[in-house]
């Protein structure tokens, strides 16, 4: 079994890199990274960047004084602002998960050279509004570029196997359903993960939860590959398939709205796989150690269900179609 899968994996990898669509996806990745850094402004949603304070000695321009410490914490939690509270000669910086570098830069900008004040940092991890908006979009880009690679490539490779009728040769070989599905899931799972990592590093940098990210990227890429296999068995030509593939991607993209405007989260949207994945990536990338076990468990469970579905469909509609089943 292992030998079969490895042989198929090498074959699928070669077929993928010799396919023009793969290079289109790769170039798109580079274009996305470039536009994140150079085209999308970091503060197009500046409401999240307010500074609020309580009990500061001095009144600074641009910092809104509030009536109590609770009000400051509430504002940080709800609106993603940054709070400053003075206790004696200690300034407490209350924020929704800023990196240390950003904290230092901020304090230097406000108070000049360190030394005049003791500074304490307090992270409230409920909201990530402070992350520049272009960078904050990274989970969305990773989900709809790197993670859906498997969905598209699995579909395209299966269609060409149908069109070139090589699938007929596979059907009279001892290959079998499991090897077919597992090989594609692993190849695109691995490539999806590599591309996701590449985007994460190029957009966010190196400061994130790597093991969590790799696990989530792999499971999500496998999930979308399995979805691609399960859907594509129903199609024999590119044009009909393309329409449906785009529709499925668009449905998955509705979760983007929830991500940009958390107020929009109707109950049904949680059932779309990309919902958990995008918010999972947010936690892994910006959550400073926030727990992603739940996102991993949900995505893995969805992938397991899709694995069973993909195997059943590939077997019934692709490999044993029109024949007596044994």
């Amino acid at each position, binding site marked *: 079994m292992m030998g079969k899968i490895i042989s198929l994996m090498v074959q699928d990898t*070669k077929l993928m890199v010799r396919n023009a669509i793969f290079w289109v996806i790769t170039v798109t990745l580079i274009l996305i990274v470039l536009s994140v850094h150079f085209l999308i402004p970091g503060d197009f949603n500046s409401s999240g960047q307010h500074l609020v304070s309580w009990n500061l000695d001095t009144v600074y321009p641009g910092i809104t004084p509030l009536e109590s410490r609770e009000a400051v914490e509430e504002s940080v939690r709800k609106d993603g602002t940054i709070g400053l509270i003075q206790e004696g000669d200690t300034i407490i910086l209350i924020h929704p998960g800023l990196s240390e570098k950003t904290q230092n830069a901020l304090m230097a900008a406000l108070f000049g050279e360190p030394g005049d004040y003791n500074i304490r940092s307090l992270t409230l991890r409920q909201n990530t509004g402070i992350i520049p908006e272009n960078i904050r979009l990274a989970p969305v880009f990773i989900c709809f570029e790197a993670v859906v690679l498997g969905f598209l490539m699995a579909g395209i490779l299966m269609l060409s196997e149908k069109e070139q009728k090589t699938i*007929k040769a*596979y059907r009279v070989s001892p290959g079998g359903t499991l090897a077919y599905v597992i090989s594609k899931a692993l190849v695109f799972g691995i490539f999806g993960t590599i591309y996701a990592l590449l985007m994460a590093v190029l957009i966010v940098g190196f400061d994130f939860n790597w093991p969590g990210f790799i696990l989530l990227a792999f499971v999500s890429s496998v999930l979308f590959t399995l979805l691609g296999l399960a859907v594509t068995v129903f199609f024999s030509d590119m044009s009909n398939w393309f329409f449906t593939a785009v529709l499925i991607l668009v449905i998955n993209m509705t979760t983007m709205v929830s991500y940009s405007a958390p107020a929009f989260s109707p109950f049904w949207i949680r059932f779309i796989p990309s919902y958990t994945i995008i918010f999972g990536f947010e936690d892994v990338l910006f959550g400073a150690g926030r727990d992603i076990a739940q996102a991993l468990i949900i995505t893995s469970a969805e992938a397991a269900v899709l694995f069973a579905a993909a195997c059943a469909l590939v077997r019934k509609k692709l490999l044993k179609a029109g024949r007596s089943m044994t």
Partner: protein
Amino acid sequence: MIDVWHLYHDYTGTGKFAVLDVTFSIPKGTIFGCLGPSGAGKSTIQNIMTGLLKLQRGEVSYEGKSVNELGVKFFNRIGVSFEQPNVYRRLTGYENLKYFAGLFSVPTLDPMEVLDWVGLRDDAHKKASDYSKGMLQRLNLARSLINRPDILFLDEPTSGLDPSTASRIRNLIMEQKEKGATIFLTTHNMDLADRLCDMVAFLDEGSIAAMDTPGNLKLKYGKKEVMITYEKDGSLVTESFSMDDKAGIASLIDRVTPVKIHSQEATLEDIFIRVTGRGLS
């Protein structure tokens, strides 16, 4: 031993049978030829035998075991060459064989060796998309041999090949038989069938119109002919007579001066036309 017993197949479910009550058996180590015009049902029979198509009615068995009960092991034993070349166009000839070989749990052959057999060694590392039709056909055949199958299904293995390549392939098929393979061969090529097959079946509109060894078919249906060519008004005229028609031959020779007389044995094609009342193509 392969047994096909009262096989029927209806693609559309409308009672129009593409295969109609076909029965034959192929003893181990022999070549069985399935001949017939386009649409006769040859590929349909092959596809039922390899498990690609559902066995609707009748039975196909290998050493007494129904095709429906054969598992993955069966696919380790067979080789199938399809009528239309179906290889990965984006892979080279070598890669096509190599990754296909990886699917088997029995020892497989060196892809290069098999490519050499079909005359593709020099093109082994060219993408299949750059192969000609005949090269693709040979690559298909090569793929069917990679697992050293003891049962071979060859659907039109020489279609689109020039005579010298075709004869090379003919020798290759003969070698497979000598190594002990049992072969189901589908073809339009009567010469190939005549030279290779231990038994041939003429298939016409889904049923077997005649089945015997090529030699017996010729004895049974083929009459030897005599062709007499003579000159008349400055041009050559040929008349043919059955070998038995002594009177006819004598009277013509009386009247004219023959330029050429030769006898000719009926070909399988002639016999096919005689048996079914139609040509092969």
